[in-house]
Structures are given as C-alpha cells and as structure tokens.
C-alpha cells in the first residue's frame, strides 16, 4: 500500500501544508504497514530532499528543472500523473493550498478518477481503501466519502493535519525524473509577496479579527498591534470588506477564507452565520463585543462584554507581560 504526496519547492521553502500532507501520509502508512512517496517539484530542490526524508518520505520523485521554477498547473499536475502511472499509488494526498486545490481536480480528471476536496480527516485501510471526511455547506455538514477506482485523490485543508515528527535516522530513495509531455497552459509572469512579514491567515496560529464594531479602518491598527504581540494575523468580517475598510484577502467567512487557528479573537464582530462558518473550527474562540446578546458569544469559549477600544489595548499589554521572557 502506497500513499503519494506532492511538495512544491522554491525560494520560500516547502511550505507547511506540504509537510502536513507528508505527516498524515506517514501516520496512515505506519498504521497499516504501507509506504510513502513524495513528488517534489521545482528548481534547485536538493535542500528539500533531506527535509522530506527526515519527515518520513520513503521514495522521493524529483522533478528539478528551470522550466519548473515557476508554478504551472499543467506541468506540475502532469509530473504527478507521470509518477502515478509508473508507480500506481493507492492514495494521493495533495496539500490544499491554492495550487493544490487545482492540481488535485486537474490530475483526477486527467487520470479519470475521483478527488475529494478540502478534506479534514482521512483513514486508509490495509488494502489501501481511503475514507475521507470533508466539510460542505460551509461547514454546516460534513460528508464521509469513499472512492471507486485508484488512485484515490484527496486535497487536505491546511492547518488541520499535524506535521510529523522529525527522524534523522530515516533514509529515502531518490529518483531523478524528467517531465514528459504536458499541455501548454497559463504562464506565470509575476509573483508578488505580501508586504513584509505578514502571517498568512490560513496558516496562522492566532488570528485577531475585526468587525464593524471597530467603527473605521484606522482602528485596525490596534488589532495589528495585538496580532504582532501574539505572532498572529489580522482578519476581517465581510461587512468590513464590503465597506471597503480592508481588502478581500483578509475576509474570514463563507465568501472569504475558512480558518482554523489555535486561537481566534473576534473583536467587534457580532457573529453572522456566514462569518461563523469560516472560523468555528478554531481551537479556542475569544469574543470581545459591546453587545452581550451578540451571537458570537454563543460559540465563544471566552467572552468579554465591553468596549473594544478599552479592552484591546489592555489585552495587548497583558499578552506582552505573559509572553515576555522570564528574567533570571
């Protein structure tokens, strides 16, 4: 039984979602005595080989060329298809990043098999049969799915599966691969990194999100300060985005991002259902709101009824104290 995963490598490194997919592949393979493989794609990828080995790859299929430096859906998915056709894995787990969420269905279509999107739980049987759990209706329900045919493809929601343990004594077999035919597609012309040091919402451990209760875009500064102290990212409600206070890439909710950090601090957010479905799987939820009847309190683990302008700066100070290195 073999589980294959996919890892992109470029200047920024492997990315946590790729290590999460490998981590889950390793755990599932160990449970049933199976093997793991990773399709590693990019340019000058050698540093990633050692990392993937330590994180539990048994076989590493390396596509390393200048032509693969920039992301291309068709080239990357064709590389995975090439490995699938040669080695017939039972399961292909793909990190559910923006790239992965299009590689998975394209690959499934190319191979004529099924793909389950955005999975939050998986289980591989000893015979290689995959059962996956995926949320639907914005998390108002979830479906258990099985597959007909092999390989069985699943994209995994980021920040759900744990990165595996590092083991320096592991060894992996590396295979240098040359990409065969791939259809021409869209050509990536520019990549712009988000402004300096910003933590990506979907990968953040802590999110501080603001709603209309903040009364204006200028007051998001205090959320930025709080987020900085706790090493988190700042999110926003739909209303804030619709009012033009903040860009759409900060929106959490049904038509924005679905996030699941360790800690979600909702400030001045009343908690409309379309917001809740985007953050209700957060491990711990804190709500700060003036209105004690706000629906957000119904799902919050800890609530503070009060004026955000008073509470947030005090909270920032308390976090600073709590997180300060202990002096000896």
């Amino acid at each position: 039984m073999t589980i294959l995963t996919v890892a992109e490598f470029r200047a920024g490194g492997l990315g946590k979602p790729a290590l999460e997919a490998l981590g889950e592949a390793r755990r599932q393979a160990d449970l049933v005595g199976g093997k793991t493989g990773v399709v590693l794609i990019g340019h000058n990828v050698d540093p990633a080989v050692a990392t993937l080995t330590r994180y539990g790859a048994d076989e590493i299929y390396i596509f390393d060329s200048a032509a693969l430096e920039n992301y291309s859906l068709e080239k990357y998915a064709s590389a995975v298809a090439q490995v699938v056709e040669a080695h017939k894995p039972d399961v292909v787990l793909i990190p559910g990043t923006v790239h992965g969420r299009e590689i998975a269905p394209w690959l499934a279509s190319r191979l004529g098999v099924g793909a389950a999107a955005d999975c939050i739980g998986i289980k591989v049987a000893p015979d290689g049969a995959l059962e996956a759990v995926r949320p639907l209706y914005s998390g108002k329900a979830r479906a258990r799915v099985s597959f007909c045919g092999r390989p069985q493809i699943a994209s995994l929601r980021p920040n759900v599966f744990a990165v595996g343990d590092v083991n320096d004594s592991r060894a992996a077999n590396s295979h240098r691969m040359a990409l065969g035919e791939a259809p021409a597609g869209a050509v990536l012309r520019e990549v712009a990194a988000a402004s300096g040091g910003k933590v990506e919402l979907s990968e953040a451990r802590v999110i501080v999100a603001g709603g209309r209760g903040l009364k204006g875009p200028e007051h998001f500064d205090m959320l930025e300060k709080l987020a900085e102290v706790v090493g988190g990212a700042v999110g926003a409600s739909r209303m804030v985005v619709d009012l033009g206070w903040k860009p759409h890439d900060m929106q959490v909710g049904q038509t924005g991002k679905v996030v699941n950090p360790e800690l979600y601090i909702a400030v001045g957010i009343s908690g409309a259902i379309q917001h809740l479905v985007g953050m209700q799987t957060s491990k711990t939820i804190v709500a700060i709101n003036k209105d004690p009847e706000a629906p957000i309190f119904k799902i919050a683990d800890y609530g503070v009824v009060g004026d955000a302008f008073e509470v947030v700066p005090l909270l920032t100070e308390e976090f600073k104290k709590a997180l300060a290195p202990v002096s000896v």
Partner: protein
Amino acid sequence: MNIVVCLKQVPDTETRIRIKDDAGKGIVRENVKFIISPFDEFALEEALRLKEKLGGQVIALSLGPDRAKDALRTALAVGADKAVHVNDGGLAGTDSLGVARTLAAAIRKLDHDVVLFGKKGVGLDRGQVPAQVAQILGLPFAGQATEITVSDDGKSATVDREIEGGRERFEVPLPAVISREKSANELRHAALKGIMAAKSKPIQAFTLADLGLDAAALQPKVLVSKMEYPTERTAGRVLQGDAATAARELVRLLHEEAKVI
C-alpha cells in the same frame, strides 16, 4: 468575444441545512430556496463587463434540474444573450468529474473564447469543476481570478490572483477557462425591461444524449457514504469585572486552561 458563464444553483446561504433521515446521504431539499452560487454571480457580472468592453455575446450555461431555469432567466434578465440548460435525470448523484465532463461536452457545442466559473459552488464547496473542464477541453486554466484583463487583440488575458502570502499574475492564451474570486462588482439588478425580455428569450435544452454522453459513464468516482452534522460549539463563559480585570483573567485562562499561549 464569446463568453460562456457557468452558473450553479445552491441552497440559499442563510438556509439551515438538514440532513435526510433515511440513509443520511443528502440534504432535505424541500422548502429550500435555491440561489445562484455567490461566486457564480461575480463571474456573471464579470462576463457582462467583458462583453460591454469587448463586444460579443454572453452565453449562460447551467446544469441542473428544472429549477436551474430560474438561474438562467436571471442571467438573461441582467443581459446574457443566450441560455443553455443541461437537464437529464441521468446526472443525479454524479460527482465533480461527471459534471465537468457534461459541461465540457456542452461547451464544445458553443462558441467560446472565455469560459467563466465562480471559484466554487457555495454548497458542496469542492471548487473542482473549473479545472476539470479545462483539463477535458485541453484549455489553459486560471483559477480564483481577482482581476481579468483581455488583451486588445483578444488573443490572451492577464489574470491576477491571491495565493498564500502573495499574488500571482498569469498570461493566459485564449480560449481559456477562468474561475472568479469574489469581487467588488456585485451582480447588477435586472431592469424591468430586461426581466420582460428574458421571458421571451428561448432557453436551449440539452440532454445527455444530445451531448453524446451516456449516464453510465458519468457514475460518481467519489461516493458519499454518510453525512453528519459537525460537533456543535457551546457558549463558554463571559468574564466579569472591569476591562482591566477581564483582560488579565482572559490571558490567564488562555495560558492555564486553554493552553493556547
């Protein structure tokens, strides 16, 4: 410019989702209001704007039961030129690949320079069909577009999108399949004149046989074995005292009880 825009009907996003009792493999659809998936509305508005700028026509395409005609009438009322409805009992229970194969077969019969989708149907939340349609048709794909600019010669488009920690800009040769992220441009309202005109515009209907497809070949590869409700969250506690006390207590609890900091 021939623009095909694919529209999916989904349960109104405010709907309370109820799982069917019997086998628990689907949701109760009775008394559920169906709307055009919000991202598809942004795609439709994008299609109308592209047509206004470049000329040509907008063809609205929907796969679904009879009620999908409502989505197509809406599209006609706001300015789509043609509507195409793929309706066949053999499609019930198919998965994203089956839908993609069917849509691709329909699109082959239509003039298309740009095929637009919303980035996902707000419902099943798979977001898989657009890339699969592109793969089947052998067309380039650009997903989750935040900005689409067609070149003057109409031979390519520049597509921007957001990814984790940054943005990407693609040059996409046309024809191509593009899926649309949410945009600031909400779908326009239909004028009365448009609504009246839409009533008399024909909706072209395709069955699987019309498309040369066989339901047996569209059987799902991903099978739902069971649907469940997520674990409900319950209200925790509201911290008492003045703001300073509450802030201090909150940080203590996050550290000692929730252990998240």
